[in-house]
Each structure stands twice: as structure tokens, then as C-alpha cells.
């Protein structure tokens, strides 16, 4: 059994967000972190590794510096990394990205008892589309919003967190799960893991490696091939402080009405 975890290096939103003239993020000028939900996916995979001794492969698509993120995840306990990186892949939207990642995962190989895990969504785009799209392209059953995962033979029982409750789903491997932060607390790198990480295998899948894969259509990848066109990206201005009206019901209503009238809203 192996678990393939898709991860993404994202801008650290606690720092300043920089945008390129074409509207895409200027990733080079920003501090990066591993996408938080992806960390929960990695932790879920490592927990299953602790229980079953399975292999964990972390996969990311991104520029070459994303390799450092893979090394950190391997220092947490992942066994190997795959960096999917090529100029041709740059600027891909979710449709294009899921094609490329599905092709990369298929190249690694998904066998009968394997699991693919993703974070629910990345904090830069917040689309939550890539995980489900990969599942569709690989013809894998998918369970999104996993808040609890139990493996029992070839069955995996997943507690899905919905807005108004939980749904428990039993799914057979191979399958794809997307993970949320309620699932676990990601572990730290360990000292032993850090000393081992640079001796673990890290492969790079470039355009040459993937371009002839059946799931890849070179005309629909990268910035040009992506169906999504970004019209404008910007950091929204911070909202001003709200106003609290205090007093009894009638008094505050009158006050509110006069403020709204003063602004010609009513």
C-alpha cells in the first residue's frame, strides 16, 4: 500500500501579498508555506504509515524551490517526493493543474490498495477543485472534507464534515480523499527525519516526462491553455471599524434610522 499526497507551496498570507502585472501572484517575492489543509493530508498519511508501515509519496507542482517544501515533508516522515516542474506548466488553472497532477500520479502508479490524499483547498486560490478533478481524471472514487479516516483492509471509513453535520462514508481503495484541518494536528519535523531527508529520493517530472501521457493535452495546460482568465487580482482594502449602537431597542432603532437616512440609504 502507498499513499500519494498532493501538496502545494502557497504564499504565507500572514505576510504581504504581491501581484504580477498579468494578475497572477508574484510568488517569487513572497514568503511561502505548505498549504495548511495539505499539512493535514500529510499528517493523515503519516498516521496511516505509523499504523500500517505503508509508503508515503508527496507530490507537488511548482517552481524548483518547491523542492525545499518536499524535503520538509520528508523530514516529517514521508518516504519520497516528486516535484512536477516545467515552464510549460506555469500559470495553470485548476483544470490544467489537475490534468498534470493526474498524469504525474498515474505515472507514479495507483494500485489496488493505494490512496491519494489532498488538502481540501489551497489558501491562495481557495477553489477546492483540484482534488476532485484529479479523482475524476483518474477515475477514482472521491470523498471530500475528511474529518476522520479509518482504514480497515481495503475499506476506508471517512467522516465527512458538512456545514450542518457529519456524513460517514465507506469507500474502497483505490480512492482519493480531501482533508480538512479538523482531521488532525500536523506533526513537526523530527531531528532524525531532518538528517535523513536529503538521502531520500526526490524525482522531478518535467514537461518531457509527462507531455505524451494520455491525460495531458498540451493545448490545455499552462497559462495559455488554462480556460480560466484572470481579469484582476488585488489585495482588498481593509474594512473600516464597525459601529456599535447601545441602548434600549427603540432608542437604538431611531439612532440607526437617522444614521441610514443621513447617508441617504433610506
Amino acid at each position, binding site marked *: 500500500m502507498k499513499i500519494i499526497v498532493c501538496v502545494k507551496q502557497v504564499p504565507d498570507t500572514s505576510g504581504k501579498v504581491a501581484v504580477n502585472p498579468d494578475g497572477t501572484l508574484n510568488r517569487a517575492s513572497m514568503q511561502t508555506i505548505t498549504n495548511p489543509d495539505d499539512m493535514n493530508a500529510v499528517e493523515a498519511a503519516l498516521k496511516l504509515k505509523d499504523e500500517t508501515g505503508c509508503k508515503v509519496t508527496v507530490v507537488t507542482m511548482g517552481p524548483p524551490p518547491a523542492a525545499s517544501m518536499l*524535503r*520538509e515533508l520528508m*523530514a516529517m516522515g514521508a518516504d519520497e517526493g516528486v516535484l512536477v516542474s516545467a515552464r510549460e506548466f506555469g500559470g495553470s488553472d485548476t483544470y490544467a493543474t489537475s490534468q498534470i497532477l493526474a498524469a504525474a500520479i498515474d505515472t507514479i502508479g495507483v494500485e489496488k490498495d493505494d490512496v491519494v490524499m489532498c488538502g481540501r483547498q489551497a489558501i491562495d486560490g481557495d477553489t477546492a477543485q483540484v482534488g476532485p478533478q484529479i479523482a475524476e481524471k483518474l477515475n477514482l472514487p472521491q470523498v471530500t472534507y475528511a474529518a476522520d479516516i479509518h482504514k480497515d483492509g481495503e475499506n476506508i471509513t471517512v467522516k465527512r464534515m458538512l456545514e450542518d453535520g457529519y456524513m460517514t462514508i465507506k469507500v474502497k481503495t483505490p480512492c482519493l480523499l480531501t482533508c480538512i484541518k479538523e482531521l488532525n494536528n500536523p506533526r*513537526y519535523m523530527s*531531528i*532524525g527525519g*531532518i538528517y535523513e531527508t536529503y538521502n531520500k529520493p526526490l524525482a522531478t517530472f518535467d514537461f518531457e516526462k509527462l507531455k505524451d501521457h494520455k491525460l495531458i493535452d498540451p493545448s490545455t495546460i499552462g497559462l495559455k491553455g488554462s480556460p480560466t482568465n484572470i481579469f484582476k487580482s488585488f489585495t482588498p482594502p481593509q474594512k473600516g471599524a464597525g459601529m456599535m449602537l447601545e441602548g434600549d431597542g427603540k432608542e437604538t432603532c431611531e439612532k440607526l434610522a437617522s444614521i441610514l437616512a443621513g447617508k441617504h440609504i433610506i
Partner: protein
Amino acid sequence: MDFNLSREHQLIRKMMAEFTENEVKPIAAETDLNSEYPRENIEKLFNLGVMGMCVPKEYGGTGADPLASAICIEELSKQCASTGDIVATHNGLCCDPILTHGTEEQKKKYLPMLTTGHKVGAFALTEPNAGSDASKGQTEAKLEGDHYVMNGSKIFITNGYVADVFVVFAMTDKTKGTKGISAFIVESGFPGFSVGKHEVKMGLHGSPTAEIVFTDCIVPKENMLGKEGKGFSIAMQTLDGGRIGIAAQALGIAEGALNEAKEYTKGRVQFGKPISKFQNTQFTFADMEMGCEAGRLLTYQAAVLKGQGVRYTKEAAMAKLWCSEHAMKTTTKALQMFGGYGYTKDYPMERMMRDAKITEIYEGTSEVQRIVISANMGL
């Protein structure tokens, strides 16, 4: 000459900084206020492989180098010097002498206990009448058949009431002076071992300091560490390494205080502007920063020399002396920037200042460091 940390050291710093921010910082004030040993965090540090990290893999450690250990102690001490102290003592003063001077049997028995076994280690040299003059210890160990009978007491023992394994120094031949001192590995479970007074200290409240007492304590003969009569030299050699740990701890305290003061002064507005914009504040920061950088270079140099297996006595003493005095200066000046708030327990400055003071005293006072440095200058 390359001043960059290796990629492993960079990851260790990142990991420790995250751990310190998430696990250490939230409880640091409480740990101090309640004089509470941070047991849960020490357990976590065992799980992460920080405790006993320089022990080779075959004995349960990770085979990290002294620089890696110094970086861990530095990062922890930025928020909690007590936690840094517990790690420094365990790694530098207990695991290190057993690794360096222990027999194969001793290493196989004790090093796994101190790493994967989650047992805490300590070092017992100081006595009421033997502080800087460590050669005047009165604790005695007499050979009786297959064991030594140890009598006496040791004071100011870091990890004293939580440790399971102690490296203890005792006279095996009182007529020989320092050449009559031998080192032993003593378990807290040995008959005749007991913990005496728990010290109530000015700072480092989370670090458990106690007196330990030997009353006809039975120590198996095979627990002598190194050769008979070599105890004093083992102690001095161990303290050379320990000083790198205290230098790293003091450096961490100074850096922690500097960071807190930077944040505070950028937000504190007086006379119409943040006080970080006043030249007096900026000049003070410049001195603090320069001192930290110098301390880092001295500490890392000593750690790298130790890792290379070359003599580093003078370098470790310089690192310890510089960093501890700089920690005292920096915490005092940083507290001043906080004004009245700095003197309250609402901010960490008074704790950092109290914690800094001990670094000028233990593992050799500043005066002893000057003796060590000048003794290595060919005067």
C-alpha cells in the same frame, strides 16, 4: 570559510522555531509563575529527538552535531530559558560525558535510556563548599567488594528532582586532591539516593534545581565513568561542552528579549511617534543586534570546533562569557524600553532579565571564564 548554516541546520532551526512558537511560548509565563517543570514539552522534545540528539543512532539518538544541539537550545531559550536549560543539561552534561568517557556496556545501558527511554539526565559536581573551586568536594565513594558506597551531597543540581540518571563526581582517594576524584553514573533508584531541598530561585523557575543526597548509596563498581582518579578532568572537559549550551541559552534569551522589544517599540507611541523611531532606541538596538551577532559567531564557532574534535576550551569560555554578559545587558535595556510595563508580569521582560542572570553564574561564573580564557593565552 562559509558562514551559512547547512541545509539540515536550517531545517532544525525552522522546526525548533515553530515548536517554540506553538508549544513553548504559550506556557512560558505560567511555567515561570508556578515554578512548574514543563513535563509535557520535555516529553515532546524526546519524541522529536531533541533530547540526547548528539547520541549516535546505534544508542538511540540521531547523531546530530554540537551545533545542531546549540541551535535547538538557542531557539527554545528565546521564549523559555528554563526549557533551554533542561535540554542543555541533559544533552551537554549527562549524555555527552557518558558518550565520551563511557565503556561500551555503559553506553549501551544508559544512552538508550536517555534518548528513546525518555529518562532525563543531570550532572552533579557542585557542593556547598566546592563551587568555583570544584576540587574541594567532600562527597566520597569507597570501594566495598563489587560496589562503591557513596556518601555526601551535591547542591544546585539542574534537573535534580526529575532526573533518573546522574553523572556524579566523588573522592575515591582523599589524599590525592583533584587526582583522587572519580566520576560515576548514578541512577535515582539506587539504594541510598535521595533528593533534598528544592531550590527557590530568582529565575529559571521551570528548571527543577535541587540538592541530591547520598547516604551509604550503593553504586555498582561498573558504574565508574572513565578511569579512577580521572573525575576532575572529565568534569572540566564536560563543562567545556556544557558552556556551549549555556552560551546558546544566553544567546537565545538575548535574541528573545531583542525581538520582544522590537515589536513593542514599534507599537508604543510617545511624543507623537513610535518609540522605535527615536535615535536613542535605535542606537540601543544596534548594540543589542551587534552583540547577538558576535555571540552567535562565538557560540557556533565553539560548537563547530567541538564537532570537529579539536580543542575548544578557550572558544567555549569566550562564547559563554560573551553571551551571558550580553544577555544580562540586553534584557536590562530591553526591559527599560518597556518602561513600567516591563517591570510587570504582564510582559516577559522581567522574567527574561531574571533568567539571564544565572547564565553569568552557572557552569563557571564570568570570573571563572576569564580564568579559563587567560589560562589558554600562553601568559
